[in-house]
Every structure is written in C-alpha cells, then in structure tokens.
C-alpha cells in the first residue's frame, strides 16, 4: 500500500499526487515511470515519474483524468492508499552536458519534462523550453518551467495563449544552434517535432507512452518499430530517437482499445463514478 501524502489539482482534470514510496524514491531518475493499480479489479497503467524526494521518501505523479483508472485515481485524496505501485521502470533519460537543449512538452507530459529540464540544467546545459496545451487553461507548471529555462515559450492549439501550434519552432531551430531536442507529449506532437528536426540533423529524443500491461518486458503490448526493429517501450525505452520511430504504427496501436476504453469509462459512470473502498 502506498499512501497519498499530498494532492493538488493543476488544471481541470489534471491532478498531482505525492505518494509515499520510500524505496522507489531513492532509485528514481528522470525519464522513468511506474505501473500502478487502483483496486483489486483494476488494470495496470503506466505513469511517468515527475519527481522524487528520497529524504521524504515520496514520489510525485501527474495524470490527466481520461479513462476509468485515471478517473478513479483522481477520486483518491490525501491519506488514501494506492494498492500497487511498481517502479521505477524503464531506462533513465540520458542526462549529460550536451550544450544547448530544446525541451518541448505537451499536455500532462509537461510535468515529467520539468523533471528533465531541472536535471539538464544541473548538468550544465543551456535549456530552451517550449510548453504547449490544447487551450490555455490546460497549461501546467508554466511558472516553474520558465524559472528553470534560459528561454521559454508557450504554445496552444487554439492560440488562446502564446503561439498557435508548433510552427514557430522552425524559427527557433533556424536561428539558434541546438545540440539536442527532447520531446515529451502526445504522439502527434512528438511526430511533428521529430519531422522538424530530422532535416536539420538535430538528435531528438522522444518519450513514448504506448499501451502497457506488465511494463517489465513480459507482454510486448508496448512494442514499437524503431529503425525497422521491434522494441519494447517499457524495457528498451521509453525514450527513443524520434527520427527512427514509426509514428504511424504507434498512433494506430494506441487506438487499439478505444471502444473498450469507452465502455470501461461508461461502466465506471454507471456505477456512480464513486471512490473505491
């Protein structure tokens, strides 16, 4: 059992949980994730780690309430327990002194991007950060990210704040010498960023979040084609070279269970959408 020690709502439907997990907290590095289960009948879902505090013995998770499990998770309060959290899983991000790093984060993945930005700064990099969301109300960690970055930009899909869309990235990439790009966010965003940097030959690392079950290399639900080879995002990733990822396939694979996900969410609502236990 893992006790929730703090809870915050960062934006509508985007929540932060700080959870007591002392062993995981001492081992967590940016880029890794956990697999958790909210109840005995629950599914195993991956959530990217956003922070850890070895002294307090806690880890931080940020998630968007989109499906049944994240909705149930969002109903839990400070003092409640999460029955199962396995982690840290996946390989830590490569953090070293690259020079100038452009970090692009979208939606809920801005949270783990902040974890990376912080580590990249500590490693002596100059960091340019771009955060984006569908609409301005869904932007999270704007202040924190801005404070940590040498240069900072905001983008929204509808233009309600900052730039509209990601086209402006081309200007940044054209003007400046950039040694590395790191992108975390929806697959479509990862694809867009990778397509922009590929002709420029800038190494671009993308964090993939495909469907997973065990998250430990056993099932292969998360398989993705990278440079023509099948990789498991859970044990070979979750970070991959964005110029080598077959995004079209990934996008299709992520939609595999859409009807079931809708049914599951509906089932949750029919039962009143109430807190467990």
């Amino acid at each position, binding site marked *: 059992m893992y006790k929730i020690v703090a809870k915050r709502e960062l934006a509508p439907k985007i929540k932060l949980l700080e959870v007591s997990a002392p*062993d*995981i907290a001492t*081992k967590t590095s940016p880029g890794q994730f956990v697999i958790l*289960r909210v109840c005995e*009948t*629950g*599914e*195993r879902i991956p959530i990217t780690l956003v922070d850890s505090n070895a002294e307090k013995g806690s880890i931080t998770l940020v998630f968007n309430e989109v499906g*049944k*499990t994240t909705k149930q998770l969002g109903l839990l309060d400070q003092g409640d327990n999460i*029955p*199962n*959290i*396995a*982690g*840290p*899983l996946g390989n830590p991000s490569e953090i070293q002194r690259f020079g100038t790093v452009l970090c692009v984060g979208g939606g809920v993945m801005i949270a783990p991007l902040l974890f990376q930005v912080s580590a990249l700064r500590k490693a002596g990099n100059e960091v340019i950060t771009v955060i984006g969301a569908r609409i301005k109300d869904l932007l999270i960690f704007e202040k924190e990210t801005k404070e940590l970055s040498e240069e900072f930009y905001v983008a929204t899909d509808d233009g309600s704040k900052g730039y509209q869309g990601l086209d402006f990235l081309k200007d940044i990439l054209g003007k400046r010498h950039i040694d590395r790009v790191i992108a975390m966010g929806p697959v479509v965003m990862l694809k867009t960023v990778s397509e922009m940097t590929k002709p420029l030959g800038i190494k671009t690392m993308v964090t993939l979040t495909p469907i997973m*079950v*065990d998250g*430990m*290399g*056993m*099932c*292969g*639900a998360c*398989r*993705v*084609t990278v440079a023509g080879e*099948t990789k498991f995002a859970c044990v070979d990733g979750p970070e991959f070279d964005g110029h080598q990822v077959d995004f079209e*396939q990934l996008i*299709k*694979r992520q*939609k*595999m*269970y859409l009807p*079931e*996900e809708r*049914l*599951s969410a509906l*089932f949750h609502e029919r039962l009143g959408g109430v807190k467990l236990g």
Partner: protein
Amino acid sequence: MAEAKPEKPPVQDRWHAVPMLKQEPKVRAHNFNEVALGYTEEQALAEASRCITCPNPGCIKGCPVELDIPAFIKLIKEKKYDEAILKVKEKNSLPAICGRVCPQEEQCQKLCAMGKKGEAVSVGRLERFVADLELQKGVAALPIADSTGKKVAIIGAGPAGLTAAADLAKLGHKVVIFEALHLAGGVLVYGIPEFRLPKRIVQAEVDYIKKLGVELRSDALIGRLFTIDDLFEQRFDAVFIGTGAGLPQFMRIPGENLGGIYSANEFLIRVNLMKSYLFPEFDTPIRVGKHVAVIGGGNVAMDSARSALRLGAEQVCIVYRRSREEMPARLEEILNAEEEGIICKFLAAPIRFIGDESGWVKAIECIAMELGPPDESGRRRPIPIKGSEFIMDVDTVVVAIGRTTTKGLETTRWGTIVVNEETGKTSLERVYAGGDIVTGEATVISAMGAGKKAAKAIHEYLTNKTKSTQK
C-alpha cells in the same frame, strides 16, 4: 456445476486407471471453469488400490522432487488422508498445483510398474485428491525448525522461488520473496489459465507458504528497485534467482506489430493475471475476433487457443510448422483442445501478416513445410516448400513460439544463467538460480526441482558458514 461425464467408459479391472470426470467439451468451451473435476473419495480409493507398492519404485526416480509416491498412496488406501498430504508436503509444497499441471506421463507415471502391462497409476490425480481435500478442510502448517538468524532473498514468486522459499523457511531461515508483479505465483497466475489451474488454488498454496513465515513483497522488480548488491547491503545472506523465462519471442516477419497480434504472454497475462475474461467488471480489456490463429505447438499455444475459444472466437486454428507427432504440448492438452473444436494446421508457418487500413491484422500469408532430417532438438526439421504460399483470413493472432529470459550474470547464448547443476550456484558468490532462468522454458515441476536443489545448497552454505564463524 456443468454437466460432466467420464473421459471414457470406465473399465473395471486393475490394468485400467479410474478416469477423472471432466466438463463436457461443448460446455467447457464456453466457460473458464476448471475442465477436470477431480476424484471423489470412492474413485481415489479405487485408483489407490491399483498401486502395488513396489519394493523398488520407479515413480520416485521419475519425480523431480523425489516425492515418496508409494508411501502417500498407501496412506490413501488406509484412508489416512491427513497423513497422506503431510507425506506429500515433506517434498512438495505446491501439491494441488502439481497434481494438476505436472506432466506425470513423462515423469513418475512413465516409470510405474503397472504401466508395463496396463495403465500407470494416476499419481497426479491422487496427489490432487489429497491436496484438494486439505484445502477444503483448512491447511495445517508443517513444523518449522528454530530460527537460524539467516536471511535469504528469493527473486520471483513462481514455482522455483516458492519452492525454495518454503524449503528454506522450514529449515528456520528468514525468507523474503521479491515479486515484480502485483500477485505471487509467476507463470501459475499469469500463464496457466483458470480452466486448467484455478487461481484460488494458487492463492491457497501461496497462503500456505506465507504460513511458513515467508514474507512476500510484491511490486518489487529486482534490478530496478533493488540490485543484488542492495540485497546484500540489506543483510541478506544469500540470494536465489527464479525469475523465469518471461520475455516473449516474436517471429521477426513483416506486419508483426499490427493490431490484433498478441504475444502469447500478453494474451495470457490479460486473460489470467488481469482477468479480462471478466471485462468490464475487471478493467483490463482483450479483443478476440471471430477467426483466431495461434502460432506454435506447445502447452502455451494450447492454453492460448482454448482461451480464445472461451472468449467467443468462432474458429480457432493452431498453426504449427511440424506435424502433430512433434508437438511439444502434453498429449492430454492436445486432446482437450481437439475435443473442444480447435483446428490444427500442421506443416505451415507464417511468413507475413497483412493488415487493413486501420492497422488491424486481416490475414496471414503462410508457407507449407515438409519435414527433413532431425535437428539438434531430435525433432525433424521443417523445410519450406517453394511456391506453396497461401493466405489465411484471420482477425486475431497469438504468437506462441516460446519465451526467453532477461539478461544478467554469466549467461548462455540463449540468455539463461549458467549454474552448477547440482547446487544452482551461479558465477556470483552467495547467488543461486533455478527454473526457467537457467534451463529456458520448461515445466513447473522441473523449476520446483531446481528450487529444491538450490534451497538445499543454500542451507548447507548458510549452516557451514555458521559453524566456521563459530570456531
């Protein structure tokens, strides 16, 4: 309970085994309840009476854990069921599981004296009978030796780890099992389906092992959460690695990542561990279409095919590159699958998967095979026949061509750990290993045998060390 009938008409003579009741094929093909229903007391007594208690029994030699089979069967004959199960548990901590999933026909029963003229005594069914009887009545814990003050870490709560843990706990060592998944049991919970091994049985046997004082830590993936060095820092005196062969193999042919194509591991993990056959009461979904192809010929292929049928597939076809004779699955499981209506396409292998616009599999292109001379496995090697390609329309595929291991320590070219066969000792000091991580994919009972050997070696190491430090 579903309607049941004997698997064949009972013949009342000593050369024939008492048949066990099974659910009717037509009924069981649509439910996840256990297929084989077990012996009644009367049947168990009749079967036990067939054992002639040989002075030099072959059955014990055939058992990887050296169970004293004639002794426990003799106790059944005397209706001393409590004593019979205690006799079994002297050597085997998971009897209700072994009674169900051991390939007895290849082990104890193969060497049974009765088998020379007639049918061997049904050792597995009798083991299951006494084990189930005890589970119904409530399990009595065996006596445990005084604490030795030594601590052993077991990595992986599968058959090897659970057996090693039970043996070491009985000898008075403090044992902690680290399990990566949320449930203990390993392949017994994620791999073998409910209809062959009900999960309440696994849970009951895990509970028994906990009663012996074993501590179970789930959600703990060793290598990530703790390293083996961390475990020694946490004052464990020895480590046993029983992490199994959990990595699915794929065929590396075009289209393998289309939707609707599962590794057998994913398919069975969803069905068994996550109980997706109860979706949406359980959250994890599974998608099974009308025409399912299962690639492979082992027990895992049989389990996948039979699960697909139970999940509502109209037609399930096993595609195997050799012929029926070379199938590695247990004959009993092949017969069960055939009875339920599973079709087998022999001497064929997929060469590519074909998808629709949405990225879902819609067909397999296969090539026909013929059998050449035997290969290193002793089975005849399949050779593709030029120009024999054909298309099979499918909407779901399960790839059951075997599992491999994660890497670590001194490994073979298959990624398994190199150990001393007698002791399970690895190239690292105080680290032992056993089960599929050493042998590659094998059976539950051979993993248990390896767990037992390692437990014995660890015990000897720990007690000798105590003596030498006392000097």
